């Protein structure tokens, strides 16, 4: 009996093969249609979603990085601008101040010159007056001294000559 049974270990049972073909074909069909299709599709769908999410995140990060860089650049530019404006303003102010100073100086110089001229003129007139005064005074004095010796015309000539000989100032 043992030999018979031992043979049965290696002897394919035709009936079992028949059933097994049916069972496995059914299994293939049922699982293929109702299990593997949804499962495998869902798995690849999920993988794609995860991949897409990762890519999107990477992209967003890259974008953020770019935006940051851009912002930084804009900030630097704005700073540069501000500095230039400030510099310009400072330069302009400096220029205005210098001009103002120059103008003021010029006016002062002008006023000085005018004043000098005025003084000169006044001095000239005063000298003139003084000369006249001195001439008259001298004449009168001389008249009083030389009342009778000299006529008036000779007197004048003498005094004038004297005055001519006087230093200018």
């Amino acid at each position: 009996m043992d030999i018979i049974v031992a043979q049965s270990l290696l002897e394919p049972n035709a009936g079992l093969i028949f059933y097994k073909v049916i069972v496995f074909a059914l299994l293939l069909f049922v699982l293929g249609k109702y299990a593997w299709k949804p499962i495998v599709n869902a798995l690849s769908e999920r993988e794609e979603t995860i991949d897409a999410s990762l890519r999107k995140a990477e992209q967003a990060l890259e974008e953020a990085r770019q935006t940051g860089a851009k912002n930084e650049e804009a900030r630097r530019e704005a700073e540069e601008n501000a500095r230039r404006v400030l510099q310009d303003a400072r330069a302009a102010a400096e220029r205005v101040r210098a001009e103002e100073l120059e103008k003021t100086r010029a006016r002062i110089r002008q006023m000085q010159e005018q004043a000098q001229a005025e003084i000169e003129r006044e001095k000239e007139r005063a000298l003139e007056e003084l000369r006249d005064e001195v001439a008259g005074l001298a004449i009168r004095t001389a008249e009083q001294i030389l009342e009778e010796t000299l006529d008036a015309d000779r007197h004048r000539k003498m005094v004038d000559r004297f005055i001519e000989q006087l230093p200018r100032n």
Partner: protein
Amino acid sequence: MALIANIRYRQIVLLLAAGCVFFGPRLAHAADEKGELDAVAHTADGVYLDFAPFGAVELPRIFLRSDPWGLDVFPSTRSALLSERYVMEHEEDGHAEVLHGDALRDAIDHHEHLYAKPKPVQGTLVLDLSITRHLVFGVLAALIVVAIFLGLARRYRRPEDRVAAPRGIFQNMFEALVIFVRDEIAKPCVGPRYREFLPFLLTAFMFILCANLMGLAPYLGAATSNVAVTFTLAAFTFVAGQRKGTKAYWTHLFWPPGVPLPVKFILAPIELVSLIAKHFALALRLFANMMSGSLLILSLIGIIFTINVLFGSLAAALVAPVGVAFTLFITFIKIAVAFIHAFVFTLLSAIFFGMALEEEEHHEEETPAEEQPALAG
């Protein structure tokens, strides 16, 4: 920490309980009336389910006979024999004797009918379509796989669940298996067209794995330890692969390029034989590995009873712990083997599919294209 300790404790208790359940029936079965262990009978297919020590359940017998043609269905072997339409022979001293009446009843009482090959009184037996133990296990494995993966498929019904992270042990565990088959077996071995073969590979892997693991369960057995089952699986692999064979593949097979004409006639049969041998080996590898594990465990347990008969009960009691320890060891190995051989079968199937899908790339001297289809057919 308390939680971890608690879990470990519970796991150990569970393991011990499982061990008791696992070894209980085997040990009980081992001691049949004569005190002998029939490891082969237990490993081989049969027309009954063994629930020792609670007895055995006979499975329906279905016979296809000719002259006249007919399909005879009986609820059990016993009823087939008692109906007197089928008879069993008792072989003794070289001549067969058909049993009738009391002799038949006596044989049935000794469970001899379970191993006999009933013959029809009228006509000849064409095909024994009886439901066998391994068929029951195979169907059970198929049902378990269907239940698990239809359950898993239900998790993806809603679109928002499809992209959500997997939740829970169930989904994570079986998703990992599916992804393993897809990424470790189908993608690298089949190539870019792997999606066409993925359903087959997944089905084969899950079915074989489930059947293999069932071989470890009490009262059950591995359907894959039956040569008919593994041949069927290999035949499916063969058909699935050859069905999609490319022109380059068939050319390579029957009209090998780049060799002289006479050599082609020598090479073609060799290639054909090697193709069939590959699938034959696929079936035998799975069958032999699953069967040997079962035989080995029963033999190790059987040592105890053999020693009991040969050297008495004291020696048997001394050997028993060793036998049980070895059995435990082999059982752990069988768990690994269950996974490894599910993997190996699927991997080799995938490699064969990949070969069938080969494209022309490295052959410069090709025969004219017109000749190929005729030869390929």
